[in-house]
């Protein structure tokens, strides 16, 4: 008992050497912002709030945060602007590598690489953030806007991303993910969930991108086997920006005019979304089509349930190989839902939407598209299991209330 007491005192004595209450560390825009802001991000202690003042922070290098439990909070996404137009080095504007971090109420503009990357950063919250490449969609823009990777519990809420040359909001190799209430415009991919498990993507607006919302799985990565993703209550409209991704990247193969594309995943639900004005197709469900060398990789799609979506005008300007011919064959436009057909009935791809479905009739995901045997299909049968809602730890939800 006595020993326990002594240990408790010892612990308290140590804690007392660091601040007991969370501090606000205010950083103003203006001269020397690079070093002042970076130093604040280094000396911050768990629980502290690094407060960005109003104005434009002209930055020359990437910023990074490696302290757990820190909040970076601006005065608003149009008031506190981290501008990387003069960036000389680093792969991203802001890099976060610690857990339990909240990023909110500021903007990142014109970063040379990715805008905000969080890697191995569990329980990360992105809230009320604007990421923008201010020159509009250009191949020279940075790749990703909001970029959490290798993380558990990712909450992206109320962000706006404009102009990413790859994906506006990209969650990669992560688990337990919510992307909601956000807007992606003029990116190659609006929102992308890649090589990830357990995600809810809902109440977002994906418009004027090349492809609105992508759910992908790629080979030769530490985490693969993407599954359990629900895409619902989103508006996915007029994704008609020509693809401006650098060749070689997987999104460079996404046809302009794509609403939602599911590639090489399993256990996916797409429901209650509103589609309109996507010239190629509203929903594409396809396998990975490129050559790969990875025995562990599963290239085809299985278990997809499509239901209760509203389909506006679509398929009127297909931007993929053979699209015009398909449109001609099917009454002037490509059907709103396309499945590559790989796996047949056993793939369990089900749609109860009241629109035609095109089955390309492929037997392998990498089969040449010229050998497809496209036909309208009814995708009925056993619906994929209803997936549970994704919940974040309470502290993460509380952080943005």
């Amino acid at each position, binding site marked *: 008992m*006595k*020993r326990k007491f*002594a240990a408790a*005192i*010892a*612990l308290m*004595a*140590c804690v007392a*050497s660091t601040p007991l209450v969370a501090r606000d560390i205010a950083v103003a825009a203006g001269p020397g912002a*690079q*070093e*002042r802001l*970076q*130093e604040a*991000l*280094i*000396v911050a202690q768990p629980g502290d709030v690094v407060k960005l003042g109003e104005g434009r922070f002209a930055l*020359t*290098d*990437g910023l*990074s*945060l*490696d302290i757990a439990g820190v909040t970076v909070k601006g005065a608003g996404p149009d008031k506190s602007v981290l501008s990387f137009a003069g960036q*000389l*080095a*680093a*792969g991203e504007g802001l*890099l976060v*590598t610690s857990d339990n971090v909240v990023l909110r109420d500021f903007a990142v503009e014109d*970063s*040379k*690489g*990715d805008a905000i990357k969080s*890697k*191995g950063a569990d329980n990360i919250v992105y809230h009320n953030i604007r990421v923008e490449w201010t020159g509009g969609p250009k*191949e*020279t*823009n*940075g*790749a*990703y806007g909001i970029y959490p*990777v290798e993380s558990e519990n990712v909450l992206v809420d109320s962000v706006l991303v404009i102009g990413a*040359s*790859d994906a506006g909001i*990209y969650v*990669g*190799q992560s688990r337990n993910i919510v992307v909601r209430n956000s807007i992606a415009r003029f990116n190659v991919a609006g929102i992308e969930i890649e090589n990830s498990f357990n995600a809810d993507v809902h109440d977002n607006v994906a418009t004027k991108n090349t492809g609105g919302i992508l759910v992908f799985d*790629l080979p*030769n*990565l*530490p985490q693969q086997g993407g599954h359990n993703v629900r895409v619902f209550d989103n508006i996915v409209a007029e994704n008609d920006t020509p693809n401006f991704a*650098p*060749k*070689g*990247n*997987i999104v460079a193969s996404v046809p302009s005019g794509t609403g939602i594309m599911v590639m090489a995943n399993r256990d996916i639900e797409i429901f209650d979304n509103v589609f309109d004005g996507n010239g190629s197709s509203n929903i594409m469900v396809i396998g990975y089509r*490129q*050559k*790969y*060398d990875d025995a562990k990789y599963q290239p085809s799609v299985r278990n997809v349930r499509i239901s209760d979506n509203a389909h506006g005008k679509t398929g009127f300007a297909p931007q993929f190989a053979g699209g015009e011919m398909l449109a001609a064959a099917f009454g002037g436009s490509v059907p709103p839902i396309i499945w590559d057909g790989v796996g047949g009935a056993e793939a369990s791809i089900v749609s109860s939407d009241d629109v035609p479905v095109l089955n390309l009739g492929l037997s392998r995901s990498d089969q040449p598209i010229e050998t497809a045997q496209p036909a309208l299909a009814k995708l009925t049968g056993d619906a994929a299991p209803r997936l549970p809602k994704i919940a974040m730890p309470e502290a993460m939800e509380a952080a943005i209330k």
Partner: protein
Amino acid sequence: MKLRRIALALACAGPLASAAPVPGSISDSAIQDAGYPRTLSEFGFFTGQGVTAPSDQLIGYSLRTPLFSDYAEKQRFIYVPASARISADANGALDFPVGSALIKTFGYGEGAAFRPIETRVLLRRASGWEALPYVWKPDMSDAELKLAGTRLPVTVPRASGRAQPISYAVPNKNQCKECHARSGAVVPIGPVAANMALTGKAAASLRSRTDWKGPVSLGSAPVWNDAGTGSLDARARAYLAINCAHCHNPQGSASNSGLFLNAGAAGDPVATGLYKRPVAAGRGSGGHDFAIAPGDPDRSIMVHRMSSTEPGIAMPEVGRSLVHDEGVALIREWISSLPAK
């Protein structure tokens, strides 16, 4: 009461257990205690002006294949407390005891003309390694801590004879970690016996201070630009291992890329870059399909990124503002030599 004092000492081992620094010698408390000394002189690594007189308690070494940093010269030292010993695993990687320090000074000019810009220290504390950057004052009287890093105008002498002005980037504390992190913790990169080059006295000192678990092979690794030390393949891989693998390994900052350039990745050709498609490379792909297109350096993302100085494309992401022309030439030659499938 006695119990309490012991508990305190245990729980707060750093600040309370340290001894007062002895003038003229290396300060163990500056290395081991919590906190960040504001000046390099507080450690006592160098006596007199600048870096010309390193303490005789330091073991100096260089690397056979070093990391490229804008053609900077680097002076490297190891400090181990007098009574402590280094251990080396079977692969010759050195594991330093608490209280050790690795000291690396970056500058330009050789020999007596060497002019230091910054000194980075890695401090082995009870809590783990701590990385701190110190920038030398113009009069070389001392170097000051720059936690947030800085940029300095520097003129780099080049082999062609022309001097090249650059904005030299001193990394901030976190950027030190970007390269030195393994599974989130800071670790040294360079001191692996095979890649270390030591002069007679330093070699003897290191040997005598180290418990070797395997056969000692000091200085046996290929020298990247010396064909007499290894095949093209071996030298190229050594270059990539030192320049890239600190991030590009399964525990490093680039773990999510799936491109692993550490020696252990050799069993998986795609992971080493052969016909590996880009992931999250963005415009870093340069329009190419593969990290390494065997036989075709002009279509290899690796060459494209090494040849660029543009943020968002350039690899490594930090630590250089110039292209390492000779390094790119080596990798081009190597990729050209690889048989296409």
